[in-house]
């Protein structure tokens, strides 16, 4: 068996750059999500972004031409609108909730969102579109032009993250104490909108569940070792790079070896899970070594 690494590089370097960009930005947002303790907000936002996209395809596309590129801006617009709507809902509910946790409301709305997506596709019939939104389609990336909208959207999110870094970090670090003020609702909506824009563009390429994995797993790996964002970011970038490189290579190796045709997305996620397990074991081992020295 000879693995042609040059071929793997030639075929995947654009997908790798995309994964690195998405993973790094989502990883940064993930550090905020962990500090806020609302882990599942992103999977819920991603699900509603998917619903927006699916609805747009049905409303604006002619029958039988469901994947026309002319309608892509409309699909993104509908996705982002759905996300902003649900973000406003969460920001307002967080202010008024009392008997029930925000996580419970997020959990319930996520399940309702998933069922609604299944419901819509059952009524209109577009199984492959939903599968694409859930699992993504990295194999479809041919050139940098096809990921340009995603690069521009992520560029805008990065600019917002730099400009508004201070207030967003302040709220994330004091999340429970800050819920009464009206300005906090504004910053909450801004944060969720940033996440929504990133998610809306990311799910087209990597799917709902991979968005969640990129958002939470690298941030958890980094949080195992440090609480400072400055040191967390290199760990996030490294974890994303290693997982994406190996995950993108797996389908090629599987095809060369067993003639199996595999999707790329799930293997990147599984690789990130493996890196997390190794990181947790390293953390436990280092902890024991430090304790035994004392």
């Amino acid at each position, binding site marked *: 068996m000879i693995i042609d690494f040059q071929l793997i590089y030639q075929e995947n370097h654009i997908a790798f750059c995309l994964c690195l960009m998405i993973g790094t930005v989502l990883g940064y947002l993930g550090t905020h999500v962990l500090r806020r303790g609302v882990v599942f907000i992103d999977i819920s936002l991603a699900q509603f972004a998917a619903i927006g996209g699916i609805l747009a395809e049905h409303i604006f596309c002619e029958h039988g031409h469901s994947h026309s590129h002319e309608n892509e801006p409309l699909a993104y617009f509908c996705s982002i609108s759905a996300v902003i709507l649900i973000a406003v809902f969460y920001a307002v509910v967080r202010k008024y909730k009392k008997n*029930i946790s925000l*996580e419970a409301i997020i959990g319930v709305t996520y399940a309702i969102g998933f069922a*609604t997506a299944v*419901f819509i596709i059952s009524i209109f019939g577009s199984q492959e579109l939903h599968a694409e939104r859930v*699992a993504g389609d990295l194999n479809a990336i041919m050139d940098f032009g096809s990921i340009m909208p995603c690069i521009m959207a992520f560029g805008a999110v990065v600019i917002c993250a730099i400009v508004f870094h201070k207030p967003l970090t302040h709220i994330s670090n004091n999340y429970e104490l800050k819920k009464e003020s009206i300005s906090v609702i504004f910053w909450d909506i801004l944060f969720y909108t940033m996440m929504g824009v990133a998610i809306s563009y990311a799910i087209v390429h990597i799917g709902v569940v991979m968005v969640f994995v990129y958002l939470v797993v690298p941030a958890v790996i980094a949080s195992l070792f440090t*609480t400072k964002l400055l040191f967390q970011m290199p760990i996030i970038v490294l974890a994303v790079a290693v997982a994406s490189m190996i995950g993108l290579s797996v389908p090629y190796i599987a095809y060369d070896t067993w003639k199996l045709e595999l999707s790329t997305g799930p293997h990147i996620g*599984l690789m990130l*899970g493996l890196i997390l397990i190794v990181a947790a074991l390293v953390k436990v081992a280092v902890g024991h070594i430090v304790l035994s020295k004392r």
Partner: protein
Amino acid sequence: MLTSEAVNFFLMQLLLIAVVLILHTYIGLHVIRRTLIFSDLALDQLAAFGILLCIVINSNEGTGNIVRLNDPITYIYALGAVTFGSFLLAVIKPKSKNIPREAVIGIMFAISFLACFAITDPVNGGGMLFDGTLKGDLDFVTWGLVKVTVIVYLLLLVFHYIFRKRFIALAENPETVKNAKLWDFLFFLSQGIITILIVPVAGVFLAYVFLMLPAAMATMFKKEWKSALLLGWSLGFIACTLGLFASYNIWDLRFFENWPYSSTLVVFMGVFFLAALLVRCIKPLRTNGKIKGTC
């Protein structure tokens, strides 16, 4: 006019929903009060992983040996998967404040979801199998399954009733419980067992909604365990019954044509949930004449 076959079908479905909702609402109340919201989704997805793993390992197209989603052997694999998941849920409690327990639960869900996708990806018709575990199949409901479900749920209800003080203490004062990890494991395992029975029929997301939505609605209105259980069960049963009738298009209306089973039930329960949220917003909770909150 309903035929006797249709009446039999509805009786079977309604009995199954009624039985399932009792234990699901009760365990859902625990899950919400302990803020382990996605633990059930993680266990549901693990049960689906067990089922799919069993099919991938044991099916052989060459010999014609095809394992179906609801074959008895799939329940054994699913039990193995949820037992492992329950153990992990009970044992892994991050000490760092920066890593919430929900993050661990979320990662378990996402990894098992991706693992389901990965193992079915190379299989012929794997996409349909994967989709089947997400949506469930109404046709899997038989009187045999209903009987087994009723017996298992009754046993679990008796178990939870006998040890209710320990389980309630886990939700209200976890530091007072001796061997908390063992009781945590038993709690998650009982949650996992009900998951195994419901996932092939209802699918991962309806199974999760069955557990969360009635309990979430009840939590908004009632604090006491008994009244919350009764309210959650009643609202859940009404919503599910309407959803069942709509998906079967019992009123023979064009509007309800092709409504899928499990997602229709979820959508109906979702409408009830949003209505409950709205009611709470219009009529806020009051304590000693002071408005305390809306949800």
